[in-house]
């Protein structure tokens, strides 16, 4: 037994020591914890940690296999995301105890705070006293046992799992109902209580999902396919797109869901031109070797930064929205190009990890597929707040794609229309964000950068919170960004354009005296190296390609990503469809595209008179439309449009 006195050492040092003890199989006693946060975070060894007093936030969070005993109370997020192992708390636990657990046993002898067991997937959360409101909020599985009263709105928006209540049941949450408890369930509960030496002779009422909210009542059928390029064409009111939209809604009686991105005309990089008359490189000239393009992203707080051979990354896209083969191909292409790939929501597969040398692991509010082991093998951790295609909304994955395998990785019931939570259980403000980031850093020994993905809404405010939160970089996604499934109107009308987003972000940082102190990776409708250079000129540190890489890898832009029957095997989980996709071939196609981007960035940088992408600046740009000039404050020079066109004719 090793004793660690928190009145002498910091939690960070203590956690290093605890992990070392774990490797040696030695149990740990924590003295004078005094409700400090993050005790034991990231531990993955089967040892016992005794906390001799009260623990603060996220005690035993992001752990697997370890056993914790907390003598007194525990703060927010007890046992956060715990896989196997156990926590026993002698006193009370605060809000979101057992949040996102995936199999752990959590025993709270006293009362527990609100939203206990939020988005839990498997395991047991036990409360000897009373629960507070919204116990089992959005739970996907596992069981909650409450000996006392349930509190109000128990089982709010639960998808699956059981909540057993010994005392009074307050108001039931939306989508919850009371049902009978089978005798084998009672036996299993008794066995659990015996194991933790809990005496209880009373009965239980069981709260489960009442069948509501798991699937949309009507599924959206594909009526006829309009290719995106005609779908988004200039139009009057009553065009085929509007007609199809009205007709479909008349059949399904609700808002529509589709894949791809917004199709409205918005101010974009095509409304910006280069101010100088560009001197194009000689035929066969090796511009790539002449221009400094390597950039490191995310090292500002001492973590190992992403090392990019050019200021380009792959935008986050989930294994789920797109197939395993596609994720593999993109991963391989990212490795070939020397850039970084991103998991998106829904976990990290071995195939993906092996394919991509640098892989950012994304954490969403539903904590689907999020776990300590993959955190430790990631090159970056990213907190998804929202995305450009649907800022403020959670992800959607329609039932067709929620296969048995996908459901197992994410820890959710098979075949539901998955609507991921739009917010994190434990990030309800900037102060919470700080404590959450600290948890990630504690769990991974401060070695990997922690970033945030922001969909462009109130970016001027959000970027300040990101900066003050101490993040290592920001991925900023404008409304031209795409998605695998989203509300059609949301995609068209919610958010601000990508060029507006970068300007708002830079202005926000400037306002708090932090210009240049937070790296920004811009994405959302960036389609080539020319757009990339414009973005870099405006002030982005790097750009990310999402849809572009899909198209480079064979996407035909039919916008039916949400259906799951992707004809080219990208946006599907159906093995037959996926078989049409050849990851190695597509990896090379995507890679060739990325090398084209590299050449364009180099050639343009050189043509603008610079030898490093870091020298690109606003002075190199003009706006071609009054709207874009107003958004960007670039000089309005419509004359450059004709000059550009004639240049392009020459080049063509």
């Amino acid at each position, binding site marked *: 037994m090793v004793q660690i006195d928190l*009145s002498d050492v910091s939690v960070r040092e203590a956690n290093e020591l605890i992990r070392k003890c774990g490797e040696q199989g030695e149990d740990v006693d924590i003295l*004078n914890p*005094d*409700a*400090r*946060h993050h005790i034991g975070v990231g531990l993955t060894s089967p040892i016992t940690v005794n906390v001799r*007093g*009260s623990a*603060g*936030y996220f005690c035993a969070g992001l752990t697997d296999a370890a056993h914790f005993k907390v*003598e*007194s*109370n525990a*703060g*927010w997020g007890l046992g956060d995301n715990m896989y196997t192992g156990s926590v026993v708390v002698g*006193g*009370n636990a*605060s*809000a979101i105890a057992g949040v996102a657990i995936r199999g752990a046993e959590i025993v709270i002898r006293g*009362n527990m*705070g*609100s*939203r206990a067991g939020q988005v839990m997937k498997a395991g047991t959360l036990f409360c000897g006293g009373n629960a*507070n*409101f919204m116990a089992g909020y959005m739970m996907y599985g596992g069981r909650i046992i409450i000996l006392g009263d349930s509190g*109000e709105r128990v089982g709010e928006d639960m998808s699956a799992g059981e909540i057993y209540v010994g005392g009074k049941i307050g108001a039931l949450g939306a989508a919850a109902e009371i049902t009978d408890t089978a005798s084998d369930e009672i036996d299993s509960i008794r066995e659990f209580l015996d194991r933790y030496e809990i005496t209880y002779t009373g009965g239980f009422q069981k709260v489960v999902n009442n069948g509501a909210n798991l699937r949309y009542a009507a599924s959206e059928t594909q009526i006829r396919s309009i290719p995106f390029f005609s779908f988004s064409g200039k139009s009057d009111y009553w065009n085929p797109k509007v007609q199809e939209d009205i007709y479909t809604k008349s059949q399904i009686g609700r808002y529509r869901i589709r894949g791809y991105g917004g199709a409205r005309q918005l101010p974009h990089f095509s409304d910006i031109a280069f101010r100088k008359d560009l001197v194009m490189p000689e035929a066969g000239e090796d511009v790539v070797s002449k221009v400094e393009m390597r950039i490191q992203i995310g090292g500002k707080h001492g973590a190992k930064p992403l090392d990019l051979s050019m200021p380009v990354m792959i935008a986050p896209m989930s294994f789920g929205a797109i197939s395993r083969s596609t994720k593999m191909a993109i991963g391989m292409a990212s490795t070939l190009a020397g850039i970084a790939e991103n998991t998106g929501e829904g976990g990290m597969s071995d195939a993906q990890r092996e394919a991509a040398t640098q892989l950012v692991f994304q954490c969403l509010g539903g904590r689907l597929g999020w776990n300590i082991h993959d955190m430790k093998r990631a090159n970056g951790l990213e907190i998804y707040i929202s995305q450009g295609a649907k800022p403020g909304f959670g992800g959607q994955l329609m039932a067709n794609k929620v296969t048995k395998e996908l459901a197992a990785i994410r820890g959710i019931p098979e075949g539901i229309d998955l609507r991921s939570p739009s917010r994190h259980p434990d990030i*309800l*403000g*900037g*102060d919470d964000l*700080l*404590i959450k980031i*600290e948890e990630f850093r504690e769990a991974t020994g401060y070695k990997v950068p922690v970033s945030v993905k922001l969909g462009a809404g109130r970016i001027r*405010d959000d970027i*300040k*919170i990101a900066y*003050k939160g101490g993040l290592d970089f920001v991925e900023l996604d404008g409304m031209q960004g795409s998605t695998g499934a989203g509300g059609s109107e949301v995609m068209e009308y919610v958010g601000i354009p990508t060029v507006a987003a970068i300007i708002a972000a830079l202005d926000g940082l400037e*306002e*708090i*005296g932090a210009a240049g102190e937070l790296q920004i990776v811009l994405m959302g409708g960036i389609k080539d190296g020319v757009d990339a250079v414009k973005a870099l000129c405006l002030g982005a540190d790097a750009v990310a390609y999402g849809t572009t890489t899909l198209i480079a890898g064979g996407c035909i832009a039919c916008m039916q990503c949400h259906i799951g029957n992707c004809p080219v095997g990208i946006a599907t989980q159906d093995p037959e469809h996926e078989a049409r996709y050849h990851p190695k071939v597509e990896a090379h196609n995507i890679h060739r595209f990325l090398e084209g981007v590299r050449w364009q960035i180099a050639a343009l940088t050189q043509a603008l008179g610079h030898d490093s992408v870091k020298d690109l600046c606003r002075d190199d740009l003009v706006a071609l439309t009054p709207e874009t000039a107003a958004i960007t404050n670039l000089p309005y020079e419509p004359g450059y449009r004709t000059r550009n066109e004639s240049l392009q004719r020459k080049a063509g």
Partner: protein
Amino acid sequence: MCGIAGIMFKNGRTDHETGVALIDMLDGCQHRGPDSTGFALYGEELENELRLRFLVGEGAEADDSVVLIKSALESHNAEIVEDERVGNTYQALVTFDGDLRDFAYAMEHAAPDAKVISIGQSLDIIKDVGGAHDVDDRFNVHDFKGSHGLGHVRLATESDVRPESAHPFWATGFSDVAIVHNGQITNYWKMRRRLEQRGFEFRTDNDSELVAVYLAEKMADGVALRDALKTSIEDLDGTFSFLVSTKDEIGYAKDNLAAKPMVLYENDDLIAIASEEVSLNRLFPGHALNTKEPTPGSYQTWSKST
């Protein structure tokens, strides 16, 4: 974007180490808000006198402000008994027996570059950029003896780090009412316009000031603090946990969604409330406390004489 703390010693005496207790509690949750720190301190009640504290800044501009403040005090028949420049503030003890609200608004307009931080018979607000210990170094908060007080640490996310954006907030126009608040009032403008139509003035765009004025107005109408807290939960939209204090009472209110943390500890001698247990534990190092987490939509008050 912040952490809050409050403490009240129950025996009614004003010789408790209130300053030290609040410094410890705020240092304990400084991670929630490293940018600025503030204290609302309640000491011995002055008889027939008011304590005013102005934020004046430093240098020649501050000197000009002090001259203007002094002449404004004189023109409102407030006689200076004692005054002092501390840090970036100017503090004056004055005799005054007119209408406090008019006087307070007049003081707000006394000098263009100065702001009133607090007015009261026992209240004194001290707030500045930096951590609890930084502010203590400038204002000797640790010397303060009193009966109760509130504290606040702020993470400045929407505006620059400035002393005037620090909390606690005084209920502009009402003596001895202070508030610390963690959260966001989403019907801020609607509530503010309602109060403005009734003649109340606001010094900032900060929603915490609104909560303070909202409660103070109710109390001025004879509503008990407890009842004012009750209606605040109905009238204010958003996510919030706040603490309020008057000359004799301290209380909390928590929104219906309980999205902002709050923990309290009570024994025979004191009641202490904070965003996180780690702050409460600073008062009793090495001891596990029997704490309580207030339920959603709840409120409670404590009085120093009971």
